[in-house]
């Protein structure tokens, strides 16, 4: 029978993805970029939608939520997985609403007036069965996938609006988005880039070699020299791992120092972040915010005599408050940090914030 085979095939795919997530997130930085993770997650969700057994939208949402919880538990720091799941859930709600005939705006507006007068949304239990729902949802997920493919290009296209000639730009660590952004600008303009190697993983070295191969004048500095050279920098352009719900960032360690130095010298701080990095998390969740890796990177085992008597920390992420950020550049354009909450309400449904 085709059913059970498809099911086992599906569960195999999901298990493979989970183990990949668990392995990929340990230690030496993400082995795969966030864009790839987002694409794989969305493809997997499309497969689940196509092959799993469900009769109504509510069933589908339950299945996706269950799988989603497992995926986020496998690698909590990889927030793009959770973001994609919430996007797909929102798509399902929209498609359901469209099939039912009610307008989309009515669902989205959650003004206090509506909450009081409508008497709650209890009747919305997604139990009705619509035949074309499956096809619509899969089509919408395909659109999402094409959007994901074009994010880096959309961001790089805006490069020339922000970089003029003879500038000195500073960046930290390695971000594929920022690399593409700077390479696109370098085709038409001449400027200088300073890269802060990001100890202990020193991903800045790879970024610098890639940029210099594209013909950009690059300098590598140690993390300790960030404030010393900041007075000669015109702009700071960085990437990030996650954009939080309050407009802050969860970025690679050392970014908070960079942001403070930029603020002190009144240098604009520009964050290149595609929309799939936007997460409804807030930074107050201390136990899930920080991620630590083996302290061997910081104090190697060769220092054996003192290792046992010393506490060594090696955090991977830093929190950057929204007051230090000047501009977000995403695939749908540029925004101020104060606008992030609005984008959040367009992308995700508030009931999906907690999977």
């Amino acid at each position, binding site marked *: 029978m085709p059913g059970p085979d498809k099911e086992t095939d599906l569960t195999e795919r999901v298990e493979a993805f989970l183990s990949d997530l668990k392995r990929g997130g340990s230690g*030496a930085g993400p082995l795969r970029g966030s864009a790839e993770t987002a694409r794989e997650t969305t493809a997997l969700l499309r497969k689940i939608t196509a092959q799993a057994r469900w009769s109504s939208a509510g069933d589908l949402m339950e299945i996706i939520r269950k799988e989603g919880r497992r995926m986020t538990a496998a690698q909590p720091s990889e927030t793009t997985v959770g973001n994609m799941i919430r996007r797909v859930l929102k798509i399902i709600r929209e498609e359901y609403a469209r099939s039912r005939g009610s307008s989309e705006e009515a669902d989205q507006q959650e003004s206090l007036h509506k909450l009081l007068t409508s008497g709650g949304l209890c009747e919305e239990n997604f139990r009705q069965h619509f035949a074309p729902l499956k096809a619509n949802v899969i089509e919408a997920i395909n659109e999402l996938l094409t959007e994901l493919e074009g994010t880096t290009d959309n961001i790089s296209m805006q490069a020339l609006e922000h970089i003029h000639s003879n500038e000195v730009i500073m960046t930290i660590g390695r971000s594929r988005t920022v690399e593409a952004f700077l390479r696109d600008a370098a085709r038409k303009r001449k400027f200088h880039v300073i890269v802060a*190697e*990001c*100890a*202990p*993983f*020193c991903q800045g*070295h*790879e970024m*610098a*070699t890639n940029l*210099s*191969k594209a*013909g*950009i*004048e*690059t*300098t*590598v*500095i*140690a*993390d*300790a*020299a*960030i*404030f*010393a*050279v900041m*007075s*000669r920098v015109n702009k700071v352009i960085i990437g990030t791992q996650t954009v939080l719900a309050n407009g802050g960032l969860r970025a690679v*360690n*050392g970014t*908070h*120092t960079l942001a*403070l*130095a930029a603020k*002190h010298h009144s240098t604009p701080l520009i964050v290149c972040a595609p929309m799939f990095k936007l997460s409804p998390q807030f930074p107050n969740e201390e136990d899930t915010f*920080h991620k630590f890796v083996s302290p061997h990177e*910081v*104090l190697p085992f060769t*220092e054996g*005599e*003192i290792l046992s*008597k*010393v*506490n*060594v*920390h*090696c*955090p991977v992420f*830093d*929190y950057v408050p929204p007051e230090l950020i000047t501009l977000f550049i995403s695939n749908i354009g540029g925004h101020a940090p104060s606008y992030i909450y609005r984008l959040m309400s367009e992308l995700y449904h508030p009931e999906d914030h907690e999977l």
Partner: protein
Amino acid sequence: MADSGVTDGYEKKGDIERAKSEGKELTKEEKQRLRKEKKQQKKSKEKKDDKVIQESGKETRGDSSAASPPQPSSQSTAQKAPSAVPPPVSVPAPEAPTPADKPAKSKAELKAERRARQEAERASKQSKKGDPGPQGAVSKSKAATNELQPVVKRLPEHIQVDNPDVLKKLAKKLERQQIPLRLDYGYKVSLFSHLHQYSRKAPLTQQLSIPSTVIHPAIVRLGLQYSQGIVAGSNARSVALLHAFKQVIRDYTTPPNEELSRDLVNRLKPYISFLNQCRPLSASMGNAIKYVKKEISNIPSQCKEEEAKHKLLKCIECYIKDKIILAATAIAESSIEKISDGDVILIYGCSSLVNHILCEALEKNRKFRVIVVDSRPRLEGREALRRLVQRGISCTYVLISAVSYILPEVSKVFLGAHALLANGYVMSRVGTSQIALVAKAFNVPVLVCCETYKFCERVQTDSFVSNELDDPDDLIVTRNGHTQLENWQQEPSLGLLNLVYDVTPPDFVDLVITELGMIPCTSVPVVLRVKNVDQ
């Protein structure tokens, strides 16, 4: 000028011949006038030569060619001015004893007066004109010393690497002192093209012949220790320098017909150039050298050699004891008042003074724990960590990129300094200003500990104009068997920057603890003034 000199000479000659014909001896004044006239003619000829040289090529005018004409010309101006006075005074004198020759005398007198006036005018014109270079400098410097202090000092050589004239002068000086010139290495970032950048793999001592007769072996050893980073840290470098000087003084013998006070200072000059080539001198070393040179030149000339050497050795020992060791004890006493039980103290890198303070605080039974922050590529914090752990202080260790993660736990930040500048800025290891910045953002007090012998009269506002560039290859790291920056020299647009120092603005620093007390950063010039008055 030349014409007037000729006519003047003609007049003088006429007068002198007349005097001769009258059977009188040439008076002193007339002899002086003859001499003057000859000198004038010589000088006008030399001036013409000078002008020709200037027009042909300015660069070829070295020190030697400029040195000779100023000497006689300055002497002649000096002579002319006073000598312009005696003739009008002495001329009326001969008039009195010989009234019989009145008409001839009066003519001669008139002529002498005219000549005297002309000479006086010429002298004043020359001093006003200011002859090219040296004479002008002589009069200008006379004017300048009347003011408070010479305003513009000579720029040090090590921050003018982009000026080819300065490099040529340095090369000539080193050749004269028989010290090899160290070459720059690698691609220099354009913002720092005015600084030297040396490679650790090419120490200066490789170019020296063995045995070196010019440089004392203790100094050669010290230079190698500096350039390889074996002796690092401003206190350690100063103490090592003073010990090496003590050795030099012990082995020194005054050559015949020389004075110890002058010859020893000249002997030390090539050693200092050599050490400067190995690694640029620090502010504390500069102050120590100034002190030693002053003590040497203050040795009275009738002092016997043995006595003088003994005195110098004692002076150096006193300096080390007072300015470094006792100062550290005094600073530790003041700082311990600032450490309370339950404190979490953050330190950066390896400062001998801060380590001393923490060990003393432990002995006084204060309960605290320490967070050591370290940075690539020097990783000096590991040394501090070892010393503190051996004493039994509980420590945490992080890299500088994690400082905003760890700072919410910290109650105080203790920093060491390389030098304190006269405008209140703190010059210290690169990364110090960053830690002060983040501490300020989290409202954590920042205390800087510094002895007064590190106070410096320089002023600086950013970390670019005067800094030290270390070997750029230090930034290369091998991870997982892969060295990303291995071939950085082949990439034409890639540069590595390894800064050694940076300056911290005074608004990030809350307190400076010195042996004179606890002062704010802005009181540094006051301390410097008090020290100068004392000396």
